[in-house]
């Protein structure tokens, strides 16, 4: 790999690592910031690849990611946290346990899926070696694990946005998705976050409910 490829590799791995950061942090506002870090990394990847391939689509994609994911989603989610409780912490969280279970989960799923399924995919040459697909896969599973392991509504929303981020990364590496579809995806996610912000105002924690069993 030459220099550019190493940089792309490095940034993609940072995306996966920021997933671990989001998993391990207790403050809810840090979760939201962590997700915007992820989106910034993805946008920068999109810009780099757009410059490399001279493709306007990717650059526009990067700009859209920045506007929609970083700015707007942050705005909507932060509005729902009351000012006084800016440093609210999710209760009863044991970080080491979650991190280690997350690690095991990712190791199993990524190794199984990557080795058996995706390793024969060939990406667009000269951009990155094809095993860079591991990173979107790691991020996707981390999003799933985040939703499954947490009770707070905000964090579950962030888990969903993380999954969508992984999809975008997947799409960027694999092939250029037509712009109109990417645009609609972004707007969808935005609308979902808006809706969720309404729900989040009402209900902050999710515990098993008696009526809904069975």
């Amino acid at each position, binding site marked *: 790999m030459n220099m550019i490829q190493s940089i792309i590799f*490095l940034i993609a791995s940072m995306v996966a690592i920021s997933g671990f950061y989001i998993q391990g942090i207790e403050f809810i506002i840090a979760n939201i910031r962590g997700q915007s870090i992820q989106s910034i990394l993805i946008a920068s990847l999109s810009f780099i690849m757009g410059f490399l391939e001279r493709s306007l689509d990717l650059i526009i994609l990067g700009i859209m990611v920045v506007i929609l994911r970083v700015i707007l989603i942050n705005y909507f989610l932060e509005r729902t946290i009351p000012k006084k409780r800016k440093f609210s912490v999710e209760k009863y969280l044991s970080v080491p346990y979650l991190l280690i279970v997350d*690690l095991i989960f990712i190791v199993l799923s990524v190794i199984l899926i990557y080795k058996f399924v995706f390793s024969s995919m060939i990406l667009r040459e000269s951009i990155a070696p094809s095993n860079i697909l591991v990173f979107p896969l790691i991020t996707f599973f981390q999003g799933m694990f985040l939703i499954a392991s947490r009770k707070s509504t905000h964090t579950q929303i962030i888990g969903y946005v993380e999954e969508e981020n992984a999809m975008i990364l997947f799409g960027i590496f694999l092939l250029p998705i037509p712009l109109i579809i990417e645009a609609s995806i972004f707007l969808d996610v935005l609308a979902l976050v808006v809706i969720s912000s309404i729900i989040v105002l009402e209900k902050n924690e999710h515990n098993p409910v008696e009526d809904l069993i069975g």
Partner: protein
Amino acid sequence: MEETLLLETISQVLFTLLMAPLFSGIMVKLKANVESRKGPSIFQPYFDLIKLFKKEILIPSTSGIFFKIGPYLSFSIYLFISFLIPVLIPTPVIFTASADFLGGALLFSTASFIKALAAFDSGSNYAKLGASRIMSFNFLAEGTLITVFFAVSILTGTNNPYTTIELLTSNPLSDLSLLHLFSLIAFFMLFLFETGKIPLESKGVQELGMIDSSLNFEYSGKLLALNEWGSYMKQYLLGSVLLNVFLFPWGLFSGVPFFLIDIPIMFLKWMILIIIITVIETSLAKLRLFRIIDYLTVAFTFSVLFLILTEVISV
């Protein structure tokens, strides 16, 4: 050839033995200077050791046999490790083939285990406190140590520390960028834990959060001197592994008389490490005890992630 080898071996072991307290002294003095204090002289650890060797040994009546032989054992293990790891000379010396990276990691854990066991054997409450604390954190620390060493071995295809250095110096840096970075971070975090730096532990006897210092609580005289010297050597060995395998593998020579150049080069490298450690120590606050496990989990996560990525990516 034989004399070269012998000379190199002796110089490596003597360097470890004699220079380790010096580095600790420099670290303390530099930190004091940064904090606008004058600080003790850089040779203070030597003076302390000499003083301790002259004092009498007091043994608590509740202690067992292990209390007495513990310090000798751990000291000799550290001395032995200095043969195995390229802390001064980049080519194998005598006794190198006794253990590889994994063996080195296991020897480190044996030494800490013996120390904890000896402290436990002393029958004193503070020492038992320290022993239980260190046992409850060690499972992640040892896991990280072993995993990081494994990962480096997978990366360079060899288990021998000396060959690893050669391979690392001969490959261009960009080949190792990502995976090397992860393992570096993991090992650095582990280094801070094992040598008891802030943010994990603070020196001083009045600290209720002490871990390592409390293991030495009941020792006096020659035994205490051996324990302290052992910790200095452990710090030197781990730091040298960090420098020579992870951070700057270059710059070491072998063969007469070039290996004498290694001594100032090691000094230089250690200065850089000391500066980094001082910056970290003076800018962070100590973590609360239950947070230490979070810290170690992060280090462990990095190292396992590194291992997985090495396997999956196989770059």
